[in-house]
């Protein structure tokens, strides 16, 4: 650290670390941006909704029914949330296992997005559970081994821990704890490997849940290969989400970003990877249709919707990513990534809510409170991302504050 540090006025830890060096009033004033105000409004409606849900129960807050026990808190918050948080393991693997060091600048935001994504998926799940205070039961008290849900519970808890540990280096750099930092840095490879194992298991198992619903899930989506579908699409989801997140971060946090990292080049590289994964995913889904001999279903209403999903949201983005990467069209790539993210959400909602109970008399539509709660969780997630990025070396690891980082 330069010798000038001693010439600077001394400030308390709270002011320095938490209030960005400002006095409390100045800090609060600096928070009055349009984005923060919108977030505040969402939370002003959302937090009472959360309280209401826990005070009055699921029936009062949701449109769940005896025929439709799962809604968007499972389909969107849990399933789509976990899929889109897969950028953590895909980027960590690319950098630390495959040795693609050029992606190092975007590993940290990807891990942070992963950690916050999983955290808020779990919070969405907590809102959905009827008896969330029993969450320790499958971990410590009663083990339902044959259950896919049991495996998911363990994997998610362990993976959340892994992501938290993987994010400790920037936290220790922020706090200036050098010994802890060097210890944390030594664990990176091990955590990455463990993280890939856990991700493989639970990303596929989230699909595996629906193996138990052969008569309820529409035959075009039901397949013994659902676990493979979910796992493969999670890779594409992670890559697309990293592209989207890096685009948004670079605009929102311009002064924090390392201007000398050619992010466009990295985005092109990610697009190349995503195009291959989506290409393979399309064929794998097609194989599922062949294996079940379901061709005749493609002409039905749901068949058309299935084609929209695999052609419009998988094959088309695959082609666009490839073309965009070849011609270095970064804006096109970013829009394709957003479209792919939407496609992942569409797929997860299809499997859990739209194509599930497709032939039941009583169909499910989310209530406004369900939508609000999900939106609120996302808002809190984005706000947390912003809080962390404004303080810790996530977007620019060239020790903006001059501290050494391995």
């Amino acid at each position, binding site marked *: 650290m330069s010798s000038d540090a001693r010439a600077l006025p001394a400030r308390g830890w709270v002011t320095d670390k938490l209030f960005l060096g400002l006095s409390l009033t100045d800090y609060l004033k600096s928070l009055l941006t349009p984005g923060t105000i919108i977030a505040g409004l969402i939370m002003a409606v959302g937090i009472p909704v959360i309280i209401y849900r826990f005070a009055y129960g699921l029936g009062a807050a949701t449109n769940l029914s005896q025929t439709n026990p799962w809604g968007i808190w499972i389909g969107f918050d849990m399933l789509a949330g976990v899929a889109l948080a897969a950028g953590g393991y895909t980027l960590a693997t690319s950098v630390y296992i495959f040795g693609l060091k050029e992606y190092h600048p975007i590993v940290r935001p990807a891990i942070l997005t992963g950690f916050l994504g999983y955290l808020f998926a779990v919070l969405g799940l907590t809102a959905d559970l009827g008896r969330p205070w029993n969450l320790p039961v499958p971990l410590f008290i009663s083990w339902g081994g044959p259950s896919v849900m049991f495996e998911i519970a363990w994997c998610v808890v362990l993976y959340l821990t892994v992501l938290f540990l993987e994010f400790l280096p920037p936290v220790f750099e922020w706090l200036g704890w050098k010994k802890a930092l060097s210890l944390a840095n030594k664990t990176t490879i091990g955590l990455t490997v463990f993280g890939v194992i856990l991700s493989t298991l639970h990303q596929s198992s989230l699909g595996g849940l629906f193996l138990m619903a052969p008569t309820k899930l529409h035959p075009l989506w039901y397949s013994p290969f659902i676990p493979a579908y979910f796992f493969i699409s999670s890779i594409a989801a992670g890559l697309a989400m990293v592209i989207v997140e890096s685009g948004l971060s670079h605009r929102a946090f311009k002064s924090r970003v390392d201007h000398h990292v050619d992010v466009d080049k990295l985005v092109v590289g990610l697009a190349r990877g995503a195009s291959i994964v989506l290409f393979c995913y399309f064929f794998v889904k097609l194989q599922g249709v062949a294996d079940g001999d379901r061709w005749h279903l493609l002409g039905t209403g749901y068949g058309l919707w299935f084609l929209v999903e695999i052609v419009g949201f998988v094959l088309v983005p695959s082609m666009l990513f490839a073309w965009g990467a070849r011609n*270095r069209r970064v804006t096109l790539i970013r829009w394709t990534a957003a479209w792919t993210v939407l496609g992942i959400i569409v797929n997860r909602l299809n499997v859990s809510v739209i194509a599930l109970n497709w032939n039941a008399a009583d169909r499910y539509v989310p209530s406004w409170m369900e939508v609000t709660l999900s939106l609120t969780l996302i808002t809190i997630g984005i706000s947390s991302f912003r809080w962390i990025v404004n303080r810790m070396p996530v977007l620019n690891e060239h020790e903006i504050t*001059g501290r050494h980082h391995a």
Partner: protein
Amino acid sequence: MIPHDILTLYSAKMLEYGIAILFLLLFIPFWRFSQSTATALATARAAVPARKKAESGWFPVPADRLFHQGHAWARPDSDGLVTVGLDGFAARLVGPLASVALPQVGSKVGQGERAWRLMTDDGQGVDMLAPVDGTIAAINTDLAKDPDATIADPYGKGWLVRVRPDRLRANLTNLLTGQAARRWMDETVAGLQARLSPGLGALAQDGGVPVSGMARVIDAANWHGLARTYLLTSEKEDGRA
């Protein structure tokens, strides 16, 4: 485990094999397509010579300064004020100046906001961003007589303004120093080298010191656009979060 009857199984399996073979046939060209670069783009890149390692000696980075990514430096002094100037890279990039338009004493500046303008003898002006938030306490009046002092001695006599800082600690998180600043400077130079075409000799390939006014040598027609890109003061963005 959806039961199939044996007859549909035959056709289903043949179809599956067929799709798999189709996939393999399509995969090879698709891999090549997605992993390659379009020919026009590739030729353009090939015209640029391979990078040489940037000499960190070209733009020495004094240890006692804090650098903003817009190539301004800040030095907190013992009297509580912060001295501000532009760095060696910016000096070399822009070259000889006609004048420097400095902000008035008592006016406010913001970190990452436009603060002063470098005027060159062709009437072009290039803005630069202030490295800290605060109020102007003093300006370097010598520059009115000798604007080139900024270019000749950017870290010494060429200082620009002295600022009374508002929120220095907060500003510090966005400034580079020490090894980080050196690495940043190296990368800046490496990026600049990538723009060179051979034979112009703007940067002597034998490792000599760069020419004053590099921007004009690199891109005579639009050198101010180039300079603004490096100083983060192009039309669309001004570097502020």
